[in-house]
């Protein structure tokens, strides 16, 4: 009903393409996260939905209607800006009700909506203050409140938590999900913080250099990245990508012969040269190791330790997350991993080669 459809949407500034041939369907009422590094085109995409940027080519549909030339005010959108965009000369109450008065909503309803929203966001005590008398977290809640009272079917958020400290951010993430559950608008949230993306989003669209890389649930993106960019962008520390080659019926990584499941042979034979992707937390110490490496240094992360290994023979780097209570031998370390967690990527195109997950040859970690 309140879905948003991008059909071959392009945006360029002069000769510089910013968003390239974007095709994406956002379901009505879902929480979609636009995630990517700085300059990947995610904010431009959001602003095109808001109508604040024109569309160079393609079609954008909202609620079944083509909106390419529809003015921002006519799109019925609520938006939270990165720097909140609160009017400094108005009180909090005036900031929140400004749009409602323009919509000529009856005063009783304006009061009811505003009081309810202020209460939900715990701002009732501040309604007569000016924005410069509030903290960053309070301003952020006022911006949310202003969008909330509009009760628009589309809720756009442009890195709303980027100015908050880590503790407030954690709290605000929960508030955002609660707000979405109140009346379930279509929610598009732009961020470059993958933790925010994984915790708030029902689906994540990962962008890079103006192109959509993958659109899927947080779990699917984490476990099964579409290409090497997604694999190395999602996860902290990122996925290990090791050069591998398939020859003589076996997979060779750093001159070590490893035996993948037989089901994979056909896929591996098609590509031969590939990247083998394995998450650091899926690597483990083993009595029958698959790979050997020299410990370079150890990062202490509280509950876990991140071991930086330099693999024997070809010197590739491998990160390995181990529980803090597991003893680490000095010098050389033998590492193993479970095949069900391994992803394979074409060495040249970087695309996931879709290995069928198999537990037949897995090593127990």
């Amino acid at each position, binding site marked *: 009903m309140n879905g948003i459809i991008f059909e071959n949407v392009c945006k360029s500034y002069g000769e510089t393409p910013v968003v390239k041939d974007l095709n994406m369907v956002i379901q009505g009422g879902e929480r979609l996260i636009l995630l990517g590094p700085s300059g990947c085109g995610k904010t431009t995409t959001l602003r095109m939905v*808001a*109508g604040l940027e024109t569309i160079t080519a393609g079609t954008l549909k909202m609620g079944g209607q083509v909106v390419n030339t529809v003015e921002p005010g006519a799109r019925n959108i609520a938006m939270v*800006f990165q720097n909140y965009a609160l009017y400094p000369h108005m009180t909090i109450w005036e900031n929140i009700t400004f*749009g409602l008065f323009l919509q000529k909503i009856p005063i009783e309803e304006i009061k009811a909506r505003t009081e309810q929203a202020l209460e939900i966001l715990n701002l009732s005590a501040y309604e007569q203050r000016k924005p410069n008398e509030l903290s960053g977290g309070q301003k952020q809640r006022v911006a949310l409140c202003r969008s909330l009272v509009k009760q628009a079917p589309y809720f756009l958020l442009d890195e709303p938590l980027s100015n908050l400290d880590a503790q407030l951010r954690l709290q605000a993430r929960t508030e955002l999900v609660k707000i979405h559950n109140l009346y379930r608008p279509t929610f598009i949230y732009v961020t470059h913080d993958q933790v925010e993306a994984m915790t708030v989003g029902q689906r994540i669209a990962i962008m890079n250099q103006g192109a959509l890389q993958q659109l899927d649930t947080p779990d699917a993106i984490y476990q099964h990245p579409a290409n090497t960019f997604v694999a190395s962008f999602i996860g902290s520390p990122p996925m290990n990508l090791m050069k591998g080659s398939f020859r003589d019926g076996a997979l060779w990584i750093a001159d070590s012969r490893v035996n993948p499941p037989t089901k994979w042979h056909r896929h591996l034979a098609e590509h031969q040269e590939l990247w083998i992707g394995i998450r650091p937390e899926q690597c483990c110490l083993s009595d029958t190791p698959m790979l050997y490496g020299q410990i370079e240094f150890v990062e202490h992360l509280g509950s876990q330790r991140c071991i930086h290994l330099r693999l024997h023979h070809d010197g590739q780097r491998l990160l390995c997350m181990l529980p803090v209570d597991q003893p680490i031998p000095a010098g050389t370390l033998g590492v193993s991993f479970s095949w069900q967690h391994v992803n394979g990527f074409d060495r040249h195109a970087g695309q996931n080669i879709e290995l069928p997950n198999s537990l037949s040859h897995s090593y127990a970690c």
Partner: protein
Amino acid sequence: MLIASSITLAKIITSILAGFAFVYYEFSHKEKLFNTLLLTFFIPITVVMMPNYLLISKLGLLNTPWGVILPQLADGMGIFLMRQSMRNIPKPLLEAGRLENASPWVILTRIILPLIKPSVIAMGIVFFINSWNDYFWPLLILHDKPTYTLPLALQMFISAEGGSEWGIAMAVAMLTALPPLLLYLTCQRFIMNTFMQSGVKG
């Protein structure tokens, strides 16, 4: 007082509206038009004096306050100042207004003007003081004593051929200087802030 106030008001209105158009709207040759406007700073008043006089004369406005006011309804410096002030307003504030379906008039009056109020006041004071002290243009246009502005009237008490009434002349000069002085003293913080901003932020 009437002439100075009218000129100030007219210049403020035209400067705000033109500055808003330069900031808010996209139209072809916008930058070229603005640069041309900046060039008007460098045209001395003596160059435009004769054509303006002929125009006012043809319109039959000689010896009337309208003859003094009409050529001074807009000011390049005012438009420049308003454009700079409006450009300093964070863009998301205006975009938030657009998303609320606010008309350009509402955005100008409810969002922009309250934020640039100090600049408008400062600009108004400068315009008022300039118009109040203006001597040469009123001298050309106004001939009858009842229509004289204060600087013209002041000149009546001083004669190059002797017989100047210095006491009265000084008293009138003092009275003439008082309104702009009081205005400046009351609002000088706006003037300082505005010109410091336009210097630092460009």
